[in-house]
């Protein structure tokens, strides 16, 4: 069971990297750095929200609080950039 979870995690990680690379390649011409950060911020926020909803829908499922914290850290890291007034 633990082996299955490790393999599934590695596969998910690899697929995530691949999808991220494809998205970045296809959108890099149209998006600037701030847009990319906003995209990451939105994706992580949506992932966090989905994890909370899944925990409500499936009462047996429980997201580790450290995962919540990790997602919050990423959002906090990128959100700082959005708070800064843009220089013209």
């Amino acid at each position: 069971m633990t082996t299955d979870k490790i393999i599934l995690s590695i596969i998910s990680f690899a697929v995530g990297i691949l999808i991220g690379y494809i998205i970045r390649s296809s959108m890099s011409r149209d998006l600037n750095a701030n847009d990319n950060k906003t995209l990451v911020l939105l994706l992580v926020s949506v992932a966090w929200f989905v994890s909370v909803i899944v925990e409500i829908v499936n009462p047996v499922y429980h997201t580790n609080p450290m995962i919540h914290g990790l997602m919050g850290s990423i959002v906090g890291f990128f959100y700082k950039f959005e708070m800064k007034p843009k220089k013209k």
Partner: protein
Amino acid sequence: MKCDFVKLGERILGILVFATAFSVLGYMIPRIYFATFDKTAYYFIKSPIAVEQKLYKPCDDVLVHLYRESLINTTAVGVKELVLVKSNEEVAREKDDLAITVGNTNIDIKWALPCNIDEGEYYFRGVVTYTVNGLEKSTTFETEKFTVTNFN
């Protein structure tokens, strides 16, 4: 250089605030939902539970036909009491650890009667307590009434 330290401090503050907020909200929102809004009976026992016979002697086993439904796999604690109807007096009590699996099941169980009970009309009643997402829930049950007599 001073400016970089300020930026670093702001960044770390942002990380700490959001990490704390996400952790607290992620932990609390499902629990608030289950404590406040969720009225689902994740484990249910159909009452009254049918008993095989209407007459028993002390020390006999009471065969009960129990129907239960569970929406989750979980462990639970069941407390069962033998009650004398006439005085509503609890004669015996037993506590069991239960392993509950998802699904609907008919179960036949033998519940032993104590050897030192008086004649009279009795029934079993009890509570099964289980945990869903850190919150304790319970379901009650009771059997049909049956008579305990020393005569054959």
